[in-house]
C-alpha cells in the first residue's frame, strides 16, 4: 500500500473574464485519517468536485486511495470557479498514487467536468482555455465534446478524452480527424419577406454598411421586429478576428459557439425585463452580458422605453468604447462589446399615436414621460431614427416582394470594402476632423450642411451624425466624396426625439 502515497501537480486554468488564467493543482496523498480537502479560494462548484472525483475514479476501475488527500489550487489569492477542476484533480490523484505513469503528456493543461461514471463533460469557456494553452505553447487535455470548438484554433494540440479510462491513450487528434464545421448559413430570416417599408429597409442597409445604431419607431405590428431580425442577414460574414473574439465570449458564457465559429453574426434580443448584470455583464463569477454576447453582431432591444432606465444608461459607455469594464472587489474584467444597436419603440405607451384610424388616448405628459425614459444622451447614440408606419392593408398587396438579403448584402459588402480601401474606420466611430477629412466635402456640400443645419435646427452633434450617415450613404452609392444628395438623404434619418 506504500504506492498509494505521493505528490503530483497538474496544470489547469480558471476563467477571469474571457481570459483563462493558469492555475496549478497540487495533490498530496499521505498517511493519516482518510480526508479529501481542497484549499485555495475555491467556490462551491469546486468543493463539490470531491464527490464527483471520488465516484468517477472508482467507477472507472482505478483505486481511490484510502488516505489523507489535500488538493491545493495555486496561486492562492486567485478565486477559482467552476467544475473544470474535476479532471485535473482526478489526474493529480491518479498520478500521486502512481496509477498514471507519465501519461498523458505531463505539461498538458487539463480542463473538464467529471460525471459520476467517469465521463468527461464539457465546461464553459473551453475556447478561452484553448487560446491560453496555445499562447503558452502547451497541449490542452479536455472533453471530447469540445473538439469541434478547439479545432477552430490552428496550432493548438488538443487531447480529447471521453472518459477517465481514455487517459493513458490520450493524444493530439490529427487535423484529418477533425470534423469540418459545415457553414450554417446566416441563420437569420430573409429581407425578401418584407413588403414595402422602403424607408426602413434603406435605413437598415445603411446601418449594416456603416455599423450605425438604428432606432425604429412605430405602432405595434408595423414590422419593426421583422426588420430588426433581418439586420444580421445583410451584414458581411465575420472575419477571423471577430469570429474568434465573439466565439470566446459565447464559450465563456456557456453558450453554443459553433454558429459564431461558422461565421454567423451574433444576434441578441434580450427581453426588456433584463437586469443591468444581465445586459452589461456581472454576477459571481463575472459573466459577459448580452452586449458582449452581441459583440461583432447585433443587439436588438425591442420596446426600448420599457427597459429599466438604469439598464439603458449603462449602455452608453459601451456604445462609445466598444467594450465594457466591470470593476468588482476581485478585480477588473474587460469584455469586448462592439455591437450594432437596433432598437424598436412605440410612439407612445398605447402605441397608436399619429395613427389616423385608431385614436391614441395617451395624454401629452404621459407621452413625454415615456420618451424621457430613453433620455437624450442615449437618443444621441442613434445615428439613424426611422419611423415604421403601419401600412395600409389595401396597399400592402400592391408591393412586390422586396429585394433579397443576398442582394442587399452585396451592396453592403461593396460599401464596406470601399471604406476599407480608402483606409477609413467604420463611419459610425469617426469624429471631428477625421470625419470631415473622410467626407471630402466640396463647396456645394458645405453649403448644404449649413442649409440643413438651419432648416432642421441641428446641434453640433446632430451635424456630426448627419456627416457620418452621409459618409456611409456615399460609400453605398460607390462614391468617395460626400455630396449634397447624400447629405439630404442622411437628413431623412435624423433623430428629433420621437417627434
Amino acid at each position, binding site marked *: 500500500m506504500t504506492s498509494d502515497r505521493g505528490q503530483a501537480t497538474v496544470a489547469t486554468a480558471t476563467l477571469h473574464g474571457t481570459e483563462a488564467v493558469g492555475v496549478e493543482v497540487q495533490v498530496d496523498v499521505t498517511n493519516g485519517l482518510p480526508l479529501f480537502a481542497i484549499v485555495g479560494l475555491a467556490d462551491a462548484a469546486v468543493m463539490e468536485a470531491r464527490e464527483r472525483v471520488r465516484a468517477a475514479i472508482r467507477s472507472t476501475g482505478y483505486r481511490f486511495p484510502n488516505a489523507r488527500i489535500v488538493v491545493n489550487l495555486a496561486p492562492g489569492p486567485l478565486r477559482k470557479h467552476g467544475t473544470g477542476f474535476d479532471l485535473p484533480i482526478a489526474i493529480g490523484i491518479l498520478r500521486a498514487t502512481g496509477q498514471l505513469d507519465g501519461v498523458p503528456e505531463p505539461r498538458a493543461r487539463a480542463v473538464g467536468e467529471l460525471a459520476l461514471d467517469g465521463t468527461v463533460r464539457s465546461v464553459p469557456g473551453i475556447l478561452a482555455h484553448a487560446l491560453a494553452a496555445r499562447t503558452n505553447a502547451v497541449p490542452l487535455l479536455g472533453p471530447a465534446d469540445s473538439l469541434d470548438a478547439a479545432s477552430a484554433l490552428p496550432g493548438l494540440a488538443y487531447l480529447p478524452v471521453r472518459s477517465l479510462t481514455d487517459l493513458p491513450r490520450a493524444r493530439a487528434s490529427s487535423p484529418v480527424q477533425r470534423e469540418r464545421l459545415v457553414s450554417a448559413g446566416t441563420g437569420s430570416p430573409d429581407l425578401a419577406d418584407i413588403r414595402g417599408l422602403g424607408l426602413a429597409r434603406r435605413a437598415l442597409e445603411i446601418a449594416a454598411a456603416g455599423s450605425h445604431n438604428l432606432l425604429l419607431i412605430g405602432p405595434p405590428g408595423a414590422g419593426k421586429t421583422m426588420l430588426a431580425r433581418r439586420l444580421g442577414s445583410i451584414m458581411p460574414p465575420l472575419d477571423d478576428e471577430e469570429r474568434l473574439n465573439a466565439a470566446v465570449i459565447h464559450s465563456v458564457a456557456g453558450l453554443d459557439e459553433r454558429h459564431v465559429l461558422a461565421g454567423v453574426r451574433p444576434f441578441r434580443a434580450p427581453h426588456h425585463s433584463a437586469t443591468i448584470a444581465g445586459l452589461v455583464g456581472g454576477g459571481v463569477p463575472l459573466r459577459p452580458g448580452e452586449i458582449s454576447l452581441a459583440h461583432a453582431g447585433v443587439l436588438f432591444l425591442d420596446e426600448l422605453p420599457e427597459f429599466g432606465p438604469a439598464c439603458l444608461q449603462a449602455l452608453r459607455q459601451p456604445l462609445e468604447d466598444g467594450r465594457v469594464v466591470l470593476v468588482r472587489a476581485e478585480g477588473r474584467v474587460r469584455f469586448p462589446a462592439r455591437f450594432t444597436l437596433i432598437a424598436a419603440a412605440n410612439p407612445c405607451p398605447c402605441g397608436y399615436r399619429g395613427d389616423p384610424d385608431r385614436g391614441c388616448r395617451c395624454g401629452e405628459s404621459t407621452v413625454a414621460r415615456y420618451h424621457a425614459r430613453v433620455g437624450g444622451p442615449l437618443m444621441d447614440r442613434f445615428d439613424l431614427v426611422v419611423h415604421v408606419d*403601419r401600412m395600409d392593408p389595401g*396597399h400592402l398587396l400592391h408591393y412586390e416582394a422586396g429585394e433579397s438579403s443576398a442582394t442587399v448584402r452585396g451592396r453592403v459588402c461593396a460599401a464596406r470594402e470601399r471604406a476599407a480601401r480608402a483606409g477609413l474606420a467604420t463611419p459610425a466611430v469617426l469624429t471631428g476632423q477625421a470625419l470631415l477629412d473622410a467626407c471630402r466635402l466640396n463647396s456645394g456640400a458645405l453649403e448644404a450642411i*449649413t442649409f440643413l443645419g438651419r*432648416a432642421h435646427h441641428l446641434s453640433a452633434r446632430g451635424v456630426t451624425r448627419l456627416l457620418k450617415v452621409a459618409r456611409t450613404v456615399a460609400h453605398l452609392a460607390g462614391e468617395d466624396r460626400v455630396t449634397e444628395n447624400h447629405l439630404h*438623404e442622411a437628413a431623412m434619418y435624423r433623430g428629433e426625439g420621437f417627434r
Partner: protein
Amino acid sequence: MSGSPTNGWVLKQGEAGYPSVLEDLPDPPPALYGFGDHALLGDGLAVIGARQATPYGLSCARRFARWTANRGIPVVSGAAIGCDLEAHRGALDADGPTVAVLGCGADVDYPLRAATVLASIRRCGVVVSEAPWGGPPTRWTFPRRNRLIAALSRAVLVVEASLPSGTFSTADHALDLGREVLAVPGSIFSPESRGPNRLIRQGATPITDVSDLAHELGEAWSAGPRTLPGTEDRLLACLTADPLRPDDAARVLGTDIVSLIRAIAALEARGWVTRYPDGRYGISVAYARLQSQHLDAEHT
C-alpha cells in the same frame, strides 16, 4: 475699334438671339458684344454691391452668389472690384453660370485685378457689353452699364451700397423696369449698408438667409432650378394633391425608393414638405401659403 476677337459674338437689335428683355429699356442698346452662351442672358439674379465693401458685404455676395449659381440660376454682376467680383467668384466656385456686364469692351480686362476672373467667365460664363470691341472704360459708360445689369436680370440682390452710389442706381433701374429688388440688411451704423436698408424701407424684400433667397427665387423662377430634377417636381405635385407615405409615393411615381427618399429630403430641407404624424409626407404650411399667393396673383 479693334478687330473682332475669336469666340466673340455680336448681336444686333432685332436679330435672333438678341435678349428680348432689353426691349424693356427705353433706350435698348443697338448691339451687344460678348463671349459665351448668350442664351443665359435675361434669366439671372443680379448680385451687386459696393466697390469699397466690408468683409460682411463680400461674404454675403459670395455666399448668395454661390448658392444661386449652384441651383443653375445665372449670377449677373458688373465685375467691379469688391462685391461684384466676389459674386462672380462665388458662382465660379459652384461651377455655376455667371454673367459679367462690362462698362468697357467685352474683350478688355478692366479692372486689371479682375483679369483672371474675367478670363474664367469668358471660358465658362458670359461676358457682355454694349461697348464695341476694345472700347475703353470711361466715366459715363458705367452708369449706362448699370441699366443693362438690371434689364438682363429677373431680380436684383443688393448686398451693400452707400448713398448715393452706382449700385443704388442699378436698384433704381431695376424698380423702373419692374424687376424684383432684394436687399441684404446691415447695421444702421454702417455707411455701406445704408443703401440696402433704405431699399428695404422702400419695400424691397429683405434677404436674411439662403432660405429667404430660396423662397424669392422659388417665386421668380417657378420653372425650377437645376437641383430640382423631374422627380422632385412630380413629387411635389403628387404631395400637393394627397399626402403619401414614401413607399406609396415611390410606387405612384414609378421611381426607386432611394431617389424618392432624397427628393423628399431635399423638399423637406427647403421647408416645402413635412412629415405628418402618421408617417405620410405632405406639403407644409409655408408651401401652401406660397401656392395660394401664386393663385391670388393669377386672379388679379
